[in-house]
């Protein structure tokens, strides 16, 4: 009995000791980690809106480059977000919620729309957060569409736990480049076909030849299918929401200007 109590006491002491050490390390690094996450998120928003650092041509980047490889100055990121992006929160109606049963938005009461605008208060593009299921876990992304809602401006993946070298390649420029100018025509049609499809190989990007197709990644079928499903579910909702509240969104930007 005494031996058991000693063992329990020892285990408790050791556990508390190690947890205390970890708590101190965590607390001292927390501010920096949060700052890193915020900067990362801001870089992703800018990338999705096709706002790149000066003198950067996306087509000349290494195909395996990620958003973090872009030579952004942290201060520029913060200033660009402050000057060119505005957010508006819109309520999600019960009617919309019914259509969103497979989406992360099903449990939300409101959705945040990011607006990219110029100095005169004209809307250039709309953006929004996206979430879907990958092979190993949730994929979080940020998508942006043109102001007339007909084309996608871009996408960036803000969090994912997919297999490095396979599914995790969704974060690489080579994959994301096919979202630039991706046609959203299918979302505006009353048809049962999928608005966005995957193809094994695309000869041209959607910039040269706008289509509704994305190029899949070899060995990452489930991840890319998860991205496709995420887009086909969430984009429909966001496009409808923006269309319904277009005046309010435009006013929010013009008031600011």
């Amino acid at each position, binding site marked *: 009995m005494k031996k058991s109590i000693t063992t329990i006491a020892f285990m408790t002491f050791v556990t508390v000791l*190690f947890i205390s050490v970890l708590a101190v390390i965590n607390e001292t*690094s927390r501010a*920096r*980690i949060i700052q890193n996450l915020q900067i990362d998120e801001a870089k992703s928003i800018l990338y999705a809106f096709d706002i790149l650092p000066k003198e950067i041509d996306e087509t000349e980047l290494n195909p395996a480059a990620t958003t973090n490889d872009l030579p952004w100055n942290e201060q520029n990121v913060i200033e660009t977000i402050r000057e060119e992006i505005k957010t508006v929160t819109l309520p999600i109606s019960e009617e919309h919620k019914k259509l969103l049963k497979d989406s992360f938005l099903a449990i939300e009461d409101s959705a945040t729309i990011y607006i990219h605008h110029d100095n005169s208060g004209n809307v250039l593009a709309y953006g929004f957060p996206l979430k879907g299921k990958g092979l190993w876990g949730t994929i979080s992304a940020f998508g942006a569409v043109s102001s007339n809602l007909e084309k996608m401006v871009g996408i960036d993946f803000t969090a994912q736990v997919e297999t490095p070298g396979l599914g995790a390649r969704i974060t690489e420029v080579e994959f994301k480049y096919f979202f630039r100018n991706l046609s959203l025509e299918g979302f505006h049609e009353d048809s049962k076909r999928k608005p966005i499809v995957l193809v094994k190989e695309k000869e041209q990007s959607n910039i040269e030849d706008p289509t509704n197709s994305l190029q899949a990644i070899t060995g990452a079928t489930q991840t890319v299918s998860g991205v496709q499903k995420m887009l086909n579910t969430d984009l429909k909702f966001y496009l409808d929401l923006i269309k319904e509240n277009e005046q309010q969104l435009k006013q929010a930007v013009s008031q600011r200007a």
Partner: protein
Amino acid sequence: MISAKSAEIIKDDLWKNNPVTVQILGICSTLAVTNIFLNTLILGLGLIFVMAFSALVVSLMRNIIPQRVRMMVQTLIIASFVVIVDIVLKAYVPDISKALGPYVGLIITNCIIMGRLEAFSSSNRPPLAFLDGVMSGIGYTYVILVIAFFRELLGFGTILGYPVMDPLVRSLGYSEGWIQWAFMIMAPGGFFMLAIFIWVANNISTTNISHSEK
């Protein structure tokens, strides 16, 4: 000067009793993360750190840990160092942390660490346990780096993200360039490379250890 015991540990961990090629430990991560050289390098460095300091702490505490909870304590120690690596990567090299995704946390499941703590650190003095931890980590890391080198080279045609094979193949007159071996990027490619490495290592080993004799 290195003592005879230290020299033996170095020789054992790096070659004669290498954790991957001889003990066949740490295979999960060997197959999973060795398709990109940089990720493999960072994971290897993380493992060396966790391995060395876990070994040191277990050795320091070896006389006070009750026998019946020793494995629980060892797991707690390993997990603590893995969390430290995870926090440091997130705070100071967030890009690498993102690229490695869940694999940093999975260092804890690497059998090499538990194996060495149980077999060596729990019954040896701290300096030797620390040396064994470092050397076992290096023994694991150089093997996965060699595998990663060939997998990234053949799978992506790159080394550390820089295109190597495509310019090489084009300079040899093949206008279509390097066709990536997608197989090498996937886990089966890791199996093949590991098997080839073990085969080569056993062939050049002077002792030529047979696994059936272990």
